[in-house]
Structure formats: structure tokens, C-alpha cells
């Protein structure tokens, strides 16, 4: 039987918590820090008052950036619309239908009117509102609400919320991986507790965090990372309990060839130069900085990045006499960290060496084919894998290579079509705007490796799918 305790203390917002702010369909992940200004949807405020409140509480923004818990069941939907016209034959669009001027509205705001009240004022002062169709009235209110209502809800983070947040705010950071596609990946890779999963991603840590959430702290996750250090900003946003991090391992792919060849010596104190160097570079940086660097390497033009190298420079000591001591301490610290790193690498390597992982998830801006071919070697037979790419062509390459090489079955190249609906009395229809694409997946299952066999004879290994057309051949 599961844990059915329903104790409020589990649901209380505490200082240091990672939370998600929500207004309408817009999300933002932040950490609760007192006296720290947060900017969300072009407004700034402090989260101090959230501490001690329960998760999922909605707050009103008062002046001075103060949050005030909103009373439950505020009359949110009670905007008085005074009847709707049945069509719009009598509406003339002359731009003069609103009697309130911009200045009037500013005055109302200064008088302390709340969003809801301002909207009511706008409706009362609109000469055309009551002639609009119900549909048009609804649209009008929604638009105005967005503009004048100052509320924010604080949520506990989850894979669902963070995936929707990244997709909505910063799709470029997660390779345009849409949340429903991520959902498919987690299921297709059979991610669950007590398994050993390999993850290769450049999605800000979102995919890694999602895998960890689904494993609930049971089992092991090995993050195969490119570049100077593992990217985990997205993982932090999940706000996992500390013990979740015990299951997380990391392995730099720059040692992958050595590992595969069996020449990686993790007992040696002196690891190959490039690892040491990249480690050194990574060590003196904060997690956030590493992330920034790692992402920038691949996409130097990325616009939305906050670069911040101040931390590094502040380490440079001011006084000459302290220099020596610091240098020594730093060297010592460096040594300790290097030893830690070595142990970590050794642990990850030993997890990989058995070549008995239970799942593989790839979602990156790298060409996926070489990554997939290298990492598949580490899976047990009869285990699922899934590769995401924004581009179908990349997965066609993977598919072709796998068909040539054998060792996998149930290969499937897919994408998904996500449609949202507006369900309202007499106004039900698909939402007018939809996502253009959610990316592509290639999924499959490993099987026992073949005794080497010419590729040509492989064709008949899998009974061919019913031929679809004359001029086509499978694979």
C-alpha cells in the first residue's frame, strides 16, 4: 500500500524550495529566497510572503511587490456581461467604442482598483460590448484579464509543469522538445524505479530530471554528458529531495572510446589531459555557469542566455601576502576535488562496464546517430531505447544504420499531433492556435547481438512489412 499520508506540512512552501510561478498558461521556475526580487510576466515582486503558505495558493500582487494570498473562491467568473448580441451585424468598428481613456485606466489603477474591477469598468464603459456575440465578449474579457489581473499561483514543480514551462518559454533550450513528446519518451523507454538508465541530453536537464522523477530515487541514472560538465539547471528546478541525487551518476562522453576499448584507467590518479582540463575549468564555476558554457559551446548565437562570469573573477585575491596561502589552499582543494571527480568517474565507469543498462534516452542538439550507436552497446538485450530529434532526417539515418547493423527490433519512427480543445456551451472547437510540431522519436528494443553476418542477408531477418508500393523498398 502506498503512502497515503495527507499532511499539510508536506505541502507548505519553505524558504529554499524550488517552486513554479503560474499565471494563466505561463510558468516560471524560481527558488524561494526572501528579499529577492522576482520578475514574472513583466511585473516584479517578492516571494517572502509565500513562505509558510500552502502550495497551489493563488496570490494577489499588492503594491510594493507584496504577495497576498487570495481568498478561495474569489468571484473570478462573475464579470457581469449584461446580455450578449446574437450576431455582429450592427457593430461598426470606429475605434471609439471604449469611453475610458488610457489615462482614466491609469487613474483607476492608482486608486487601487483590482484587475477584476478595472475590467468591469471597461465593460461598463464600452458602447459595443453588449452588442457583441457571447464568443466575442468572452474573447474580450480574456484579453483584458490578461492585461489587468495581477495574480500568481505558486506550484510544486513536476515533470508536467516544467516540460510545459520550457516548451512555452524557452523551446530553444530544450531542442523544441514538446511536453507530450517527452511524455512518450518516458513511457517508450519504460522508465521506472529500480532500473539503470542512460541519459544523453542537451535539454537543460529537463529530460534528466523527468527520468529521475519517474524513478523516484530508486535505481541509477547515468548522465552521459558532452563538453566540460553535466548540465543540470533543469534538474534543480524539480526540487528533488537530497537522496534522489544519490542515484545520479555522470560520465563524460570524451572518454567513451576509451571505455568501449577497455583502455580507460579510472584507478590512475592522472586521467587523460582533456578530462582534467575540462574538470578544472568546470570546478571553479557554479552549476549555472557550467550550464551556460556548455550550451553556448554548441550554439554560440543563443540569445536568451544570461552570461555571468563575475563569480570567477571575484576569486582573484586582492592582497599580495594572502596570495601564497590561497594558492596553497586552492591547490589542496583542487586535489580533493580531482580525487572526488576521479571516484565519480570510476563509479560511473563501473556501472557502464557491465553493459547491462535497462534503458537509453537521447535528446540532444548533436547528430544522434553516432551517439545512439555508441550508447546502445551499454544496454542489456531486451531493453527499450528512444531517441528524440527535431529533424526527421536524423532519425532516418539512425533507423537505416540500425537496420544494417541488427541487434534491435520493433524500430518505430514517430511523431505526435497535439490538439487542445475549447469546451464551452455552444462554443466547442479545437483551439485556433496549435504547436507546429513536437519533434520526432525513434524507439526500439535491443536484442542479443548477432554473430557477425553480412548486412545483405539481414533483410530477411525481419519479415518485411507488407510492401506498400511498387517503387519503394523497405529500409
Amino acid at each position, binding site marked *: *500500500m502506498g503512502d497515503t499520508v495527507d499532511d499539510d506540512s508536506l505541502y507548505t512552501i519553505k524558504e529554499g524550495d524550488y517552486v513554479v510561478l503560474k499565471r494563466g498558461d505561463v510558468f516560471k521556475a524560481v527558488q524561494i529566497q526572501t528579499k529577492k526580487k522576482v520578475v514574472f510576466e513583466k511585473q516584479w515582486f517578492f516571494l517572502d510572503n509565500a513562505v509558510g503558505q500552502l502550495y497551489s495558493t493563488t496570490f494577489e500582487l499588492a503594491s510594493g511587490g507584496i504577495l497576498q494570498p487570495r481568498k*478561495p473562491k474569489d468571484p473570478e467568473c462573475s464579470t457581469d456581461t449584461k446580455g450578449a448580441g446574437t450576431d455582429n451585424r450592427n457593430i461598426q468598428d470606429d475605434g471609439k467604442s471604449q469611453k475610458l481613456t488610457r489615462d482614466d485606466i491609469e487613474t483607476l489603477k492608482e486608486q487601487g482598483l483590482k484587475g477584476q474591477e478595472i475590467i468591469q469598468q471597461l465593460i461598463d464603459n464600452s458602447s459595443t460590448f453588449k452588442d457583441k456575440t457571447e464568443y466575442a465578449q468572452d474573447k474580450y474579457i480574456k484579453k483584458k484579464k490578461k492585461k489587468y489581473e495581477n495574480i500568481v499561483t505558486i506550484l510544486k514543480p513536476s*515533470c508536467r509543469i516544467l516540460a510545459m514551462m520550457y516548451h512555452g518559454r524557452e523551446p530553444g533550450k530544450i531542442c523544441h522538445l514538446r511536453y*507530450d513528446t517527452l511524455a512518450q519518451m518516458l*513511457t*517508450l523507454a519504460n522508465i521506472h*524505479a529500480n532500473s539503470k538508465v542512460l541519459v544523453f541530453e542537451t535539454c537543460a536537464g529537463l529530460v534528466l530530471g523527468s527520468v529521475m522523477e519517474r524513478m523516484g530515487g530508486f535505481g541509477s541514472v547515468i548522465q552521459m554528458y558532452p563538453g566540460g560538465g553535466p548540465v543540470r539547471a533543469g534538474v534543480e528546478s524539480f526540487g528533488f529531495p537530497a537522496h534522489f541525487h544519490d542515484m545520479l551518476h555522470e560520465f563524460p562522453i570524451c572518454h567513451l572510446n576509451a571505455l568501449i576499448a577497455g583502455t580507460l584507467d579510472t584507478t590512475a590518479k592522472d586521467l587523460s589531459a582533456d578530462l582534467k582540463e575540462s574538470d578544472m575549468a568546470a570546478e571553479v564555476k557554479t552549476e549555472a555557469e557550467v550550464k551556460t558554457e556548455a550550451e553556448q559551446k554548441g550554439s554560440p548565437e543563443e540569445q536568451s542566455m544570461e552570461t555571468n562570469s563575475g563569480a570567477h573573477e571575484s576569486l582573484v585575491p586582492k592582497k599580495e601576502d594572502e596570495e601564497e596561502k590561497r594558492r596553497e589552499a586552492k591547490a589542496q582543494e583542487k586535489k580533493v576535488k580531482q580525487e572526488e571527480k576521479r571516484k565519480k568517474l570510476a563509479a560511473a565507469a563501473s556501472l557502464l562496464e557491465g553493459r547491462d543498462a535497462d534503458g537509453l534516452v537521447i535528446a540532444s542538439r548533436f547528430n544522434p546517430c553516432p551517439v545512439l550507436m555508441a550508447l546502445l552497446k551499454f544496454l542489456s538485450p531486451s531493453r527499450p531505447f528512444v531517441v528524440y530529434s527535431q529533424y526527421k532526417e536524423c532519425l532516418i539515418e539512425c533507423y537505416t544504420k540500425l537496420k544494417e547493423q541488427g541487434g534491435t527490433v520493433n524500430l518505430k519512427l514517430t511523431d*505526435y499531433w497535439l490538439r487542445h480543445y475549447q469546451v464551452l456551451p455552444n462554443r466547442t472547437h479545437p483551439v485556433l492556435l496549435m504547436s507546429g510540431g513536437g519533434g520526432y522519436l525513434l524507439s526500439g528494443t*535491443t536484442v542479443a547481438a548477432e554473430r557477425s553476418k553480412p548486412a545483405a542477408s539481414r533483410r530477411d531477418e525481419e519479415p518485411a512489412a507488407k510492401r*506498400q508500393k511498387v517503387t519503394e523498398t523497405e529500409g
Partner: protein
Amino acid sequence: MSFVEYSDCIQDGDVAIVYLGHESMTPVKVKRGAQTQTRYGVIRHSTDLIGQRYGSKVTCSKGGWVYVLHPTPELWTVNLPHRTQILYTTDIATITMMLELKPGSVVCESGTGSGSLSHAILRTIAPTGHLHTVEFHQQRSEKVLEEFKEHRVDHLVTVRNQDACKDGFGVTGVADAVFLDIPSPWEAVRHAKAAMKKSGGRVCSFSPCIEQVQKTCEAFSDQGFEDITSIEVLLRVHDVRTVYLPLPDFGPDPSAQIQPDSTITPPQNHASIAVKTTIPPRDVQGHTGYLTFATKPRTQL
């Protein structure tokens, strides 16, 4: 073997998936001494299966061969005996994420149906969660419990043979998530609410028809659920193919003849180019159902 934990080798009593070829599989209950007939010949469980590693190639009596796969909820979904319409992986994956399921989640489900979604839920909430699943059809509820036992997940699930619309889910204030796949989901909404934790949770209703969605949204709204969202997710499969496109023959090119080097042979009449592409299957699943999600807010008691 269990549906919530991998094993390396096939053991007596396991359920294994025999992979016969592209989109052709069959589940097998492994039993010492038993045999399974396939189109490639007989598989002898004692020698061909037990003790073998999952994922191995097994040669059948006629010389043909198959792979034996470890069961997963996804393989089960495409291999299970249909006693009802079932949910498929595309909807299941969406439901799992949007209900925020994870190890430890307590989930209520109705109806159990053929157990397609149930197995996926159990996989995700193990080892510390629990599924309360309600099925009004008695035969079906008995059959699915039997399967849960065979799949070694019965410790994670309680099957109840009752009508969720009338009698609810048999639990109160414990569920993190509720899933409804019944003809009149709106009649079960208040029971769903009652089953859920005071602190709130997520609910989902699956319905093929838009009228059901409309009534369910209304019921969710009436019962104080928030963030009511209806979506549809469709799978698109891309078959990888190499196609050969003929090149048109425009006849001799007079401008080309100006060139003195006449060793270049003109393009052949039936020359063609090969293109690596994907084609869609001719007919695809155009609709399964609408998924309506909502959040139960904290209940003030």
C-alpha cells in the same frame, strides 16, 4: 520477471513476449515441459526458454527463429487479449505525465477494462504506490486480477468489482490521481473527488465523443476542479523507405552537343534516382478519444 522490475533470464512461470517479426508478437506463459507452436515451428519451454537470457534468439523446430523479449507494459498493450476497447501507448504516455504519476502515487481507475492502462500505471507507481481499479463487469475484473498475479504486480493493486458511478472507488481521501474511462464519466466525478487527497491531485477522463467531454467538463467545473483542459494526441508513424524516381527524358540536348567532348553519354531513358524518405501508412488511427485533465484543488474541511 515482473512487469515492474527487469530480470536477466527467463524463469518458470514468467510471461515472455515472443517476437516473430515486424509487428508480429505473441505472449507466452513459460511453463516447464510446455511447448508453444509458432509459424516457425515449436518452442520447447524447458530447453528453449527457461534459463535463457531475455532478448535471446531462439531457434524453433522448423529452423526458423524468434526473439524472446522481457515483458513491458508497452509490449503487453500490443499483445494483450482484448476484452474491451483498450487504451494505447500514445494516450497512456500522455495520461501518465499529465496525471503526474511517479513512484509512490496512489491512483484510482475505472474501468479496468483489459488492463492496458493499469499495467502502465503500476509500472510507474511501483514500488511504493498503489492502484485502486474498479471494473463493473465481473468476469473482466476476475480475469485482470489473474493477469496481475501472473505479472507479479498484484501486491500493488486492489481490484474492485463495482460501478464507479454508483459506488465510487472504495477509498476516500487517498488518491493523488484518478482516471475515468467509462461511458458516463460525469456521473463519477463526485466519487473521484471523494477518493482524492485533501491536498488535491490530478484527474483525467477519456471519452471518444465530444458530448461526453462537454458533460464531463461541466461536472468537473461544478465540483470545483480547476485548470480543466481537453486535448487529443495522435500518433503518426513514418515508414522508412528508399524510393526510386525515374528521371524524365527531354531528348538530345542541342546545347550539350556544342561541347567537343562527346564521350559524355546522355542520361539513359530509364535512369532514376534513389531517395531515402518516409511514407505514412495508407490508413492511420484518426481518433481514439479526447483526454480531459483537471486539477482538484485543496479541499477546505
